[in-house]
Structures are given as C-alpha cells and as structure tokens.
C-alpha cells in the first residue's frame, strides 16, 4: 500500500524518478493519444508528418541550392538539406510541443495528480514517429543519389539522442516558465523561426566566420546537425566546439527538471 507524505516544511527538491517510472504506462498512453488524434479523419495520415519538412526542403533547394549556390561539396544539395532538416524538425517539434504541453493539459492538471513531467516527456515520443517519417524520406533520397553512410554511422544514435535531449531541455524549461509567465508562449515560435536560419541546416557550418564560431556552436543543434550529416552522408566532422553546448545541455536538462519540479507544487493553482 503506498504511503505518501507531503511536508511543506521540507526544503529540498526530490526528482522522484521512481514515481515517474511507475507512471510509464501513462507516458506511452498519452503519446498514443496524441498520435491517434493528430491524424484522425485524415486520408494521408502520417504522410502529413513528412510533407511539411519536404515543402521547406523544396524552398531551401531553390533559394540556397539554385539561387545562392551554397557549396555542399560532393553531396547533392537536397540530400544535404534534408539530413539537417530531419534533425531540426525533431528538435523543433519536441521543443514546441513540450513547451506548450503543460498549458494544453490544464484540464488534467487541475483535476488529478500525476507526475506532471509525463506531459512534456510524452511529446518526445510523439515526435519520434514524425522523425521516422522524415527519416525514411531521407533514406529514399540517399538511395536515389547512391550515397551510403560510412562507418561513422555508429555515432548516429548519439546525435539523435542529443537532439532529443536538446528539444526536451528547451521544452521542459519553456513549459515550466509558461505556466507562470505566458510571455514564453510567444518565445517558442520565435526560437523555431529564427533557429532554422541560425542553425546550419541550409548551409554548412564551415561558412561561418571564425570569430563567430564559439557563439554559433553554443546553439546545441549546430553540432547535432553537423553530426547527423557526418554520420549519415559523410560530410565534414562537427567542430569539437559542439561538446561545449552538449555539456551545457546536460546541465540545463538537470536544472530544468528541478525547476519543473519546483513549479509543479503550485502548477494546478496558476496554470
């Protein structure tokens, strides 16, 4: 029989990962709900998940590939851009959805208890499905151009994980902040709109002038996207500067969890 003690005088914060694990079924059920609901009563279903990045890809290919003639070495431009896009789309999805998820789940939060972290976390699973749709387009394109990954492909899961971590970190921070300050609701869309140009998706990071590189690689997705391409289609290896932002993400992720926990105490009162 569970024994619960709530003591307002205890100052320390407990992440209570054990409880989070006990609610793992809810995590998957919520993700399942999101997936089922999103494409309910549509004919194309999950194809919609891939169509949006494809549309952006067409624009990028015309603007950066044909007009601006960005140099992508031996890699055909569409493949180059799509590889970056797939990682970015996943990051942006998790950040966006997780960031607004807590406000969206208001009805549940004010009525019943469960570890609130489940809500933003479930979005990272939902995003994976979208990611694999885009990713299969990428595989098709790779086959078409006859470009195969090198042995570096073993590092691919690491970069995918980093992209998940970055999305969740930003998402968890934003979701907790949005509960208190609705201002952050608007910030989310700025990040995803500006981020797509500040991140080396449409162009290689080598185009960035040396004196801006440190600043450029503070963006965690800069390293992730360079890494994606390096491990999949054999472009240049990412700048070691990326470990700076990767380390920063780990720190921000853990502090984000604690901040979320802190907000959780009064979430139902102010959401």
């Amino acid at each position, binding site marked *: 029989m569970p024994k619960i003690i709530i003591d307002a005088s205890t100052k320390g914060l407990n992440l209570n990962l054990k409880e989070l694990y006990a609610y793992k*079924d809810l995590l998957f059920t919520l993700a399942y709900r999101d997936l089922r609901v999103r494409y309910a009563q549509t004919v194309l279903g999950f194809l919609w998940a891939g169509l949006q990045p494809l549309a952006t890809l067409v624009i990028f290919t015309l603007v950066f590939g044909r007009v601006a003639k960005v140099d992508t070495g031996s890699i055909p431009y569409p493949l180059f851009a799509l590889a970056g896009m797939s990682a970015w789309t996943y990051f942006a999805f998790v950040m966006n959805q997780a960031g607004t998820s807590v406000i969206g789940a208001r009805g549940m939060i004010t009525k019943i208890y469960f570890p609130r972290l489940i809500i933003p976390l479930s979005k990272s699973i939902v995003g994976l499905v979208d990611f694999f749709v885009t990713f299969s387009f990428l595989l098709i394109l790779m086959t078409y151009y006859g470009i195969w990954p090198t042995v570096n492909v073993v590092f691919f899961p690491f970069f995918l994980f980093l992209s998940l971590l970055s999305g969740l970190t930003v998402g968890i921070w934003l979701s907790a902040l949005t509960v208190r300050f609705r201002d952050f609701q608007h910030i989310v869309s700025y990040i995803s709109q500006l981020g797509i140009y500040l991140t080396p998706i449409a162009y290689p990071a080598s185009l960035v002038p040396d004196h801006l590189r440190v600043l450029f690689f503070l963006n965690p997705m800069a390293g992730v996207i360079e890494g994606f391409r390096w491990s999949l289609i054999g472009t240049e290896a990412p700048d070691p500067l990326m470990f700076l932002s990767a380390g920063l993400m780990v720190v921000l992720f853990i502090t984000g969890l604690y901040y979320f926990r802190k907000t959780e105490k009064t979430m139902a009162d102010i959401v």
Partner: protein
Amino acid sequence: MSDIAVKIENLSKLYHIGEAASGSLAETISGKFKKVFRTTARQNDPTEFWALKDVSFEIKRGEVVGVIGKNGAGKSTLLKILSRITEPTTGKIEINGRVGSLLEVGTGFHPELTGRENIYLNGAILGMARAEIKSKFDEIVDFSGIEKFIDTPVKRYSSGMYVRLAFSVAAHLEPEILIIDEVLAVGDAEFQKKSLGKMQDVAGHGRTVIFVSHNMSAVKKLCSKGIVLINGSLSYAGTSEEAANYYFSNNNALHLVSIKNRKDIKGDQSILVENIEILNNRNNPVGELIVGESCKIKFSFSLREEIQMEKLFFAIQIYDINEKLQTTIASDELGINFPDLAKNGQFVIEIDRLNLRAGDYYINYMISKKVSNATPHVIINHLQHAKAFHVMTSDFYNSGVLLRSAGYLQDARIYTER
C-alpha cells in the same frame, strides 16, 4: 500497518489572488521592485487569501467522514491537497493508501478516441497500470452498459453514455481512500445516485471515504464522522450528527445585525420586538433550515403601553433573494386574535413543513392595529429585512434526487392515464 488513513497536521494553503498570480513577466518584475522599495511590510495583503488555515485532523482506516462547510470555506482546497493536485503552503499530510476521487470523472477523455482507447487512457491517468486496466476491462465495460459502442469514438456518444463510461472507469479504480465531492455532482441525478451508491459500497468494504457535501441529510445518513470548516479553519470535528448540528447553529453569516441596532423600524413601537429567532426541528436557533422540515419563527417582544388587543394584527412576509414575495403568514387570515398579551412574551409562528426550496430568504414583519377591512392599518411595529435565513435542499420525497433550488415546493403527484 497503521490504522490511520489520513493524518493532517497544521495544514495551511495560501493563494495569491489577482493579477500577480499568473500575470506576465513585466508585472512580476515590477512587483518585485515594488516589494524592494516598500519600506514597511504590509499587513493583511489584500492579494493574499488563506484558503486553509492551520487545519489538523486524523481519519482512521474505514471511516466515512463528511466535510461540511459553505462555499469558500476551504472544502475544495482540502480535497485538492488530499488528492495531491496542489501542495500545501505549510503543514504536513500523511496518506496511507491509494487515493481516488470521483471529482475526476472523465478527465483526459478525448472525443476522437474510441471508448476502448479512452478506458485505457483514463485508467492510466487515474494511475492504473496497463495490466490492471486490462484485467478489469470487461468489468468496466459491463458496468457502463455500452458494449455495443466500445469501438466508436466517444464524440458520437450521447452525454449519458459518456458519463456512464467515465464513471465506470473511475469506479473501478478501487482506491483505499475515496474522495467524493458531491457539490460537483449536483444537477445530474443519475450520476449522483451512482456516486452515493458507489460510496456506500466502498465504505461497506472497510475502505476510507471522504465526502464533501451541502446535503446535511446525506452526510448524516452516510457518514460516521463529520468535520466543519469555517473560513478555512477547522471549526468542529465529531460525529456526523454533531457536526451537522454544529454547522447549523453556527452558520451566522446570513443573520443580519441585531434587531436592537436597527434604525429603520417603523411605527410607534408600543410593542417592541427585541429578538427574532428561527428554530429548526430540534428547537435550536439556526440560520439554516431544511426543505420540508418543521421550524418555528419566534418574535420576543415587550409591551411598552396598553393596546387594544382585539384589533391586533401580526403578519410576516417571506421574500427571496430577488425581492420576490414568496408567501405571507397573517393572523387575520388564520382567524387568530390576541386577547391577552403578556408584558414580555413571544409571537411564535409554527411551520409543520417548510415549503420553500433551497435558497436565501428574508422576513419582513408587521404588527399593526386593523381597524377595519376598508381603512389602512395603524402601524405599531414594522420592519423590512428583519431576519434572513437559508434553506438547504434535501431528498424530501426519498427519491434519491435532491430538490432543485429556488421557488415554492408544491405538493403534487404525477401519474399517467389512458
């Protein structure tokens, strides 16, 4: 295993009301500045509200406890803290066992999902593991009675089917501690009946129930213990009967200022009304009555000079909160004369069955000389809004349905003819 189900120590909950609670970033920052520059700490900050203050009590395993209090007394806040939706500002709670509440019926239900999917979703939100839902799935569907539509999206359900399915999931959670907020259930008789039925069922199995209600007769009938919350503080804890009585006699909010301090009394006041009391069926002075129960209204008076008794007229009028006259009780209509008044006596109006539905009412009274039917009364003592009282609903006809509020309770029967 301890025999304590819930232990609450010095529980308080502070709410910040107004804009500052969830305003924008700019407001919070400017608020912080104001705090810095405010030299003296402000007492009684108007934006602060203590929904609960220093509440302590224990609930033993298997007890059925009624929580009584007016709207805003802190009942909902207490429930929210017990069901862990929000955390207390100060104090400590110990809960032994899984808490389930019937306030969350249908939480997380998604209209696009089928009944089957919603059972799993809702169950998971309520804290059931997938395996647990799976094992109870057939039972849940049976109880809801919607087998045929289990694979239809719930957006195509009628509202009745929707509630049945939602309730069915919640009812199969089998918590060790069940919380029921009856206030939320009002308006859906079917659901209310089911809730109460489920509650008796749960209590019968030796589990703990915390029941929040406005319905005193239900509290008395279903609960063994009762606690009374007044303005966020625990005011009384005892048996449910004692708690309900305590609540009745202390609910003075509707009482107006003492009649002695009233400046708007009309007439020469040769008969001085010193006090008005409303007594319930146990002869306790109260501010609240129950639909259908007997009651008395007592006017204590003293005579300041001799008056002609045979022409004396005494009447009250009962108005509702919207200043609408509900009824008149008059001595001449009842054929009552007052041949002999004591120097210090009482006019007593005895009502066998209060035919007013739930709501707030007030009384005007009139003591006058009625010279003839054609001439106006000579007013001795007349006061409007002399006394207020509240009528609470009850299951008057024992149908399991609480009487709806407002208006007059007309005796009637309904049957069919062919």
